[in-house]
């Protein structure tokens, strides 16, 4: 399996604090991967680097079959290259309806002029309805996103990511603050998505990770501590030390 994303030897320092230290990471397509680690392990910074929000001090981030470097690209360019990102807090356009949110996210030309003259076709409407059905919001298409529940917003955001049709989906703590049934739905969504693309889930919750049933990468102090199945990594003495403290 060729890797879709290859991060190698990446380091980044904030005011003397080494948030990421010689990190290397690969993921193929399709694949579901969970990234776990204690607070401050560098999980969010790792995502920031991949999505172009933070520039690393050294290292390489290569993408796709032609191994394009992502380091010189803007966030928007990286997103258009096929990397979608879900934030920890749900970020949807609360002022707009669910349908509008999804329509904005649909994979289309992103330039201002094309968008200015864009008028949705029946196929686009159908696609939006399909997505809404997938994330369980069919009944709320004309609802303002702002009045959705927390879980519904998370799903809507995942739906927007899916509408973007990315090849790699980075998901930051999707289950935080969800009830058990909501978590199960989220698990299903992610597993379904991972059938056709690469999905990286950053999560604290071991239970949720277990349900994802996938390869796990443990981050600690900015680098990979262990990688493998959940059972494999949780039996690793170093991982136990890190999580339980010494």
């Amino acid at each position, binding site marked *: 399996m060729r890797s879709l994303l290859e991060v190698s030897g990446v380091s980044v320092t*904030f*005011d003397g*604090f080494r*948030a990421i230290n010689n990190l290397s990471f690969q993921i193929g397509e399709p694949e579901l991967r969970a990234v776990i680690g204690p607070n401050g392990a560098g999980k969010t910074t790792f995502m920031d680097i991949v999505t172009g929000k933070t520039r690393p001090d050294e290292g390489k981030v290569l993408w796709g079959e032609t191994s394009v470097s992502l380091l010189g690209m803007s966030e928007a360019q990286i997103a258009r290259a096929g990397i979608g990102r879900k934030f920890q807090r749900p970020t949807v356009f609360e002022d707009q309806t669910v349908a509008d949110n999804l329509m904005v996210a649909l994979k289309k030309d992103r330039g201002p002029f094309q968008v200015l003259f864009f008028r949705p076709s029946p196929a686009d409407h159908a696609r939006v309805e399909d997505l809404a059905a997938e994330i369980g919001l069919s009944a709320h298409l004309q609802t303002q996103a702002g009045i959705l529940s927390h879980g519904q917003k998370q799903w809507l955001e995942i739906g927007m990511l899916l509408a973007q049709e990315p090849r790699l989906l980075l998901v930051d703590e999707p289950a935080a603050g969800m009830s058990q049934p909501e978590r199960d739905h989220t698990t299903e969504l992610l597993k379904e998505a991972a059938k056709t693309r690469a999905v990286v889930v950053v999560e604290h919750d071991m239970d949720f990770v277990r349900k994802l049933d996938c390869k796990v990468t443990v981050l600690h102090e900015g680098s990979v501590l262990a990688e493998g199945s959940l059972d494999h990594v949780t039996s690793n003495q170093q991982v136990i030390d890190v999580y339980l403290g010494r």
Partner: protein
Amino acid sequence: MIRPILATLVAVFLCATAAAAQTAPAAEPAAESGLQSILQEHHDLVERASRQTVQTVLDALIDSEDEAVPAFLERWQARELYMRNADGLFVYVQNDRADPLVLLDIETGAELGTAGSRDLTALRPNRGVQTVIGAALVQFQLLADDPATRATALQAIERAPEPGQLHMIGRMLDEETDPALRDQAEWLLTRMTIAFAEDEAQRVAAIESLAGDVRVQARAALNPLLLTDRRVAEALPRDANIARVLEPGSAALPRADAYAMLVAAGLAPQEVTAQMRRDALIANITNGTVAGIQVHQLGTEAARARAYAALAAAGAVPPAPTEAEQTAALAAHVFYDEYREPSTAVTAAAAETVAAINTHVGLLEAIDLSLDGISLASIYFLAAIGLAITFGVMGVINMAHGEFIMMGAYTGYVVQLFIPDYTVSILVALPLAFAVTFGAGVAMERLVIRWLYSRPLETLLATFGISIALQQIVRQVFGAQARPFTAPDWLSGSLVFNDVVAISYIRIAIFGLGVLFFVLLWLILNKTRLGLEVRAVTQNPSMASSMGINPDRINMLTFGLGSGIAGIAGVAIGLFAQVTPELGTHYIVQSFMTVVVGGVGNIFGTLAGATLIGFLQKGIEWLNPSNTLAAQTYMILFVILFIQFRPRGIVALKGRAAGA
């Protein structure tokens, strides 16, 4: 009867020798001593002294080196000299109101008996003669025992130096012991040597001794040597001291100016300007035509040129020199600047020395500019630091910050209404201004800002609303015109290092205030519990509140603190700026710039921003001193470009604290 005739004869003889003495005084042997006898020798010249002739008498007197001469000259100048009609003896009188008058000998002061006022003629030298006597007196005064007299004499020479005084100063310097007077005399000697000395080498040496002298007088002494006259000739004269040769059409000598010089010197015919041609054509209109061309066709330059040429051919107007003729005339002559000073050695030395001085002055000006920059930076620091704190901690921009500065200045004004002593009033005004604006800031935070924390842009507009309301209210209460807020005497004046470098005491005080507040704030933010909490709220408000810090209280206190410092800054600014309701608006934009350039949430950032903005503004003003508006324009453009390279300012928070 014989005596006066004899005296006249002698006088005529001596006149001739004295005239010779004037040209070569050193060669003449000392005249016969005895004041009275010398005067008698020049009897008529003393009795009917005139500006032209009196110098002869004076020279004879001075050459005699008689000790009574200075006192005599003073009395003569003061119109206290009398002549006894009977024998022409010159005397003083004891009291000019007494009758009979008691006569005194002019050498010894001994009484010579009495005389009625009719027996005496009062000698009243006119103003011109008085002046000449005064000039002669100067050399005695230069050697007087009283230093004050010597100082006065030096000043008299300095006002109107003359070539003959050069040696007097030399003589004075031989004996002068007072260091201040010595300095003064030496300076005068140098200056007069440059101007009057006959020996070229002496002058050059004197000129070169001024290298590195940055006083304005030094340049004033040298610049006359470099004055030039612009001349035109067929060829460069050989013996002239030529400063530079000019090329017509260059920036130094535009072509039109060069041609005008030719015309003025009668070396070329007058050119015909468009205006002159027009007037000539109008003067030659006959029956609606000019030289056979219809007037209504003369609406173009080409047509007018044709008409003029026709007139010239008919001899009605002088022909206009063509472009080629003008060029030829210009090419046939040289244009040059000639020094008024004939000696090339002197002008070369002067030019070199002036260049050296200017380099030196340039360096000092840079230092002076830096001092100005520092003082402006401290003003901006004081004005902006409050803004930076509130912006850093709460993320809101307080548009009314400028009005808090203005309120501080008005507090100073009001305090002076009640406390007339300027020193005390400022000491009272500083804490009071802090209290007033602290209160205003806290009130504003409680009433308005805290409801708007999630909407920073609206805070900006709401505080703007407060700003215009405050400004108008102050205008209603105090009026629109400037109010006096006066600095105490010990703050007026300047600390002067030399003619180039000086800094006013107010600015030094403001610098001190800036340093004081920098240190104070650093201590508050880094060494106190409040500071710790403020920094915690700045970096992560939600985390801070979860750790038991009450962000409400912190916000309120921070806002109060920031506003209070604005009040203090207002007092400082009010001391040198006009206290008007618009005072704040003049500083608010610079304060914003300072904060934006420096970076928020860090007093070092504000310091860096204020320094950059202050120096930059002074630097731009120095490049273009006539136009402060342009300076501000360019500075703002710079800030806009600066933001391109450091969007978060000079001292930027990094990492997560910087936020998304």
